[in-house]
């Protein structure tokens, strides 16, 4: 029976129970929320309070040449500092005198660091006079490891601390300096291969972490260490000895010719590997400030120029494959200055009567007029296609800031450029692009993409080679053979024949003289960007050499490059022990009919 009297307490109990349950449920919900739903978040938050960690820096990888000679490496130097306070405390401690009294220690330290001992003692005394608890007196920065060892062996680490600091060293100085690039003060790669292959060179920092309890005491067993992974070693295709010779030689030649600058590029025919890429003026990445900042990049890859006559063989290839022209027929009549039907006026570099030029003759005499007549035997689109096939408008090795050069579409060719494009004007290339074009001719018409980086070796020894360069048969082997024969005739019958002779070797060569834009839409008067390109030996082409001079003044024409080209080719043959030519040259090709 339920009476009023019994009902009231029971209801009260039920209500109380319900309240308790509700509160309990709220707690359970909160508990689940904390322990399960947001557990990770809270754990992370708590770890933040008690976890400490220090980064372990990894070392940046080195850059080596094709033979493994180190071109760039990271080493530790040490920055020394003193704690005058500790020196004072040690000296004042009569009961427990230091093993090496300051008077003697200071002399030894000064001796190793190359300081004046008297001055060192005076500095410490002055620091102490100013503040008896002075803890920081900077000494020499950038001590070598040898000095670090000597100083460490003094066993005075209680007041002499030496912090390691990573610096980049380029053992060969300016050799390949422009290719290597440099690292700025904050350790960022700013140019060259340092920037180009940052992915391989950059280290991954490690970390040493631990948890601390009250007062920063490390909780035992909480330490964990992730080792740093050093950067990989980048191997270049460059031969540093050849590179040195080319830089030395082009610097001398450019100065002899009164030029503003010069470059040499050497490319291996069979592989497309760049074996030397020298330029002057140059920079030494060890001492950037010694050179002006416009030499800090690589002009070789970033400066495009109108190649001029060096691209006449490309026009020749187009007409030989598409208009049935051979080395000796048909011929075209050309004088040294002609006005064409569309109004264009084309000049040759020298005055001559009207000749019946063969294609070979037009190349040997480098006649712009004859080439204009030959070149227009095919449509502009065909020539555009050939320029593209030979690499105009395509970057070579993706060097930082590398230019692709400029190739206008045929729709933009006007009356004048319809003809000037047959002899290397109205488009621009870089020296490596020029080398690439001749690599195809030397390699039987098969163009192989240029390469500068051989491989990346990771710290665990894995060798990662970049994607293989593209191979493409851009002209028929017979066309390439005919071009080679004509280019050998250019070398032998051309105006520079004696100056470019490499005794024992049959060489090809072609000169180029480009006008330099004056920045106001016109061209600079009387000064040119001259170049010479060729390969050797003709019977088994091994290396392509390109030499350029920027505004030579002693001889302003492309003849200025002859001596540099001859030296570059000779040294390349010698460096790679290329066997001299064993077969004699074919009969000379007739220039005229």
């Amino acid at each position: 029976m339920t009476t009023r009297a019994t009902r009231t307490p029971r209801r009260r109990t039920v209500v109380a129970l319900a309240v308790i349950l509700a509160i309990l449920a709220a707690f359970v919900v909160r508990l689940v929320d904390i322990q399960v739903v947001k557990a990770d978040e809270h754990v992370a938050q708590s770890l933040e309070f008690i976890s400490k960690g220090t980064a372990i820096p990894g070392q940046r990888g080195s850059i080596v040449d094709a033979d493994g000679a180190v071109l760039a490496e990271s080493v530790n130097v040490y920055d020394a500092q003193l704690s005058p306070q500790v020196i004072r405390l040690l000296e004042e401690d009569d009961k427990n005198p230091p093993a090496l009294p300051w008077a003697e220690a200071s002399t030894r330290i000064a001796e190793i660091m190359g300081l004046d001992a008297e001055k060192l003692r005076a500095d410490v005394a002055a620091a102490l006079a100013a503040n008896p608890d002075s803890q920081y007196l900077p000494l020499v920065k950038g001590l070598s490891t040898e000095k670090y060892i000597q100083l460490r062996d003094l066993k005075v680490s209680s007041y002499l601390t030496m912090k390691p600091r990573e610096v980049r060293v380029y053992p060969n100085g300016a050799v390949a300096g422009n290719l290597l690039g440099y690292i700025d003060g904050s350790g960022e790669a700013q140019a060259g291969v340092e920037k180009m292959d940052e992915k391989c060179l950059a280290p991954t920092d490690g970390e040493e972490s631990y948890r601390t309890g009250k007062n920063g005491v490390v909780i035992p067993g909480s330490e964990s260490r992730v080792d740093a992974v050093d950067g990989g070693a980048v191997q270049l295709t460059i031969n540093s000895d050849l590179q040195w010779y080319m830089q030395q030689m082009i610097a001398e030649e450019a100065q002899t010719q009164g030029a503003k600058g010069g470059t040499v590029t050497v490319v291996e025919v069979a592989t497309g590997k760049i074996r030397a890429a020298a330029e002057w003026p140059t920079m030494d990445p060890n001492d950037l400030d010694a050179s002006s900042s416009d030499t800090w990049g690589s002009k070789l890859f970033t400066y495009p120029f109108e190649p001029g006559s060096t691209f006449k063989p490309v026009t020749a290839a187009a007409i030989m494959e598409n208009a049935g022209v051979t080395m000796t027929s048909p011929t075209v009549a050309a004088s040294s200055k002609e006005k064409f039907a569309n109004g264009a006026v084309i000049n040759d570099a020298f005055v001559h009567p009207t000749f019946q030029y063969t294609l070979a003759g037009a190349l040997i005499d480098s006649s712009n007029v004859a080439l204009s007549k030959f070149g227009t035997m095919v449509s502009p689109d065909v020539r555009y296609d050939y320029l593209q096939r030979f690499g105009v408008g395509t970057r070579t090795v993706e060097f930082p800031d590398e230019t692709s050069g400029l190739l206008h579409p045929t729709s933009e060719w006007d009356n004048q450029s319809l003809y000037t494009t047959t002899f290397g004007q109205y488009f621009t290339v870089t020296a490596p692009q020029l080398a690439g074009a001749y690599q195809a001719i030397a390699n039987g018409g098969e163009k192989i993409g240029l390469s500068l980086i051989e491989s990346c070796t990771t710290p665990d020894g894995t060798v990662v080679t970049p994607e293989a360069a593209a191979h493409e048969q851009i002209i028929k082997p017979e066309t390439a053979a005919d071009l080679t024969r004509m280019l050998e005739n250019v070398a032998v019958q051309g105006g520079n024949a004696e100056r470019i002779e490499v005794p024992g070797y049959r060489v090809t060569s072609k000169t180029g003289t480009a006008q330099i834009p004056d920045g106001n839409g016109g061209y600079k008067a009387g000064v040119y960007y001259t170049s010479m390109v060729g390969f050797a030996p003709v019977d088994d082409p091994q290396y392509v050499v390109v030499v350029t001079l920027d505004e030579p003044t002693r001889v302003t024409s492309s003849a200025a490059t002859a001596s540099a080209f001859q030296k570059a080719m000779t040294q390349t043959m010698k460096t790679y022990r290329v066997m001299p030519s064993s077969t004699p040259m074919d009969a000379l090709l007739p220039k005229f009919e």
Partner: protein
Amino acid sequence: MSLNALAPRPRSQPDAPSRAPRRRLQPVTGTPVRRKPKLAYALIAVAGALAIGAVQIGLSLAITQDSFTLASLSSEQHELDLRTNALQEDLTGLSSPQSLATGAAALGMVVAGSPAYLRLSDGAIFGQGTGAVGASTVDPNGAGAVSNALLNDVPVNASTEDDATPDGTADGTAEQSAQELPPAITDGLPSPTTR
């Protein structure tokens, strides 16, 4: 309910004789002769425990010893790394082509022109075989010298501690080369075997 219900019921005491045949339990008649525990088992157990203990101590000693060895080896490794770095730093710059070229130029060597090759098997000459002219195609000390800031502090070919070579002066090095003559030829010029 009445309290009677809780009163203990009188135990029914069955008649002893009637249950006798079912009785299994026997009165204890005497203590059985206790067998003497075998000492060997005890010894084995104790020895086993001791052996386990000993092995454990031995192992932990070995591990501790190993960690000492490891520590000393890694400090040795660190020391050797430092020495290697120090020695390599000495070579930095000196190993450069500039340093080699200036050294060679100081000895009077030149970068000559076109090469020629002599085939040993038949004495054939490849190339022009003209001798080198006295002039070098480049001058490593001239106006075109390729700079190397690392060589500025160190004179080229400067002697390091245990290197007795005097700095690259022509006399000093010539003197040394005089001491180190090539091996004397005793069996005639090296030549291919002919039949």
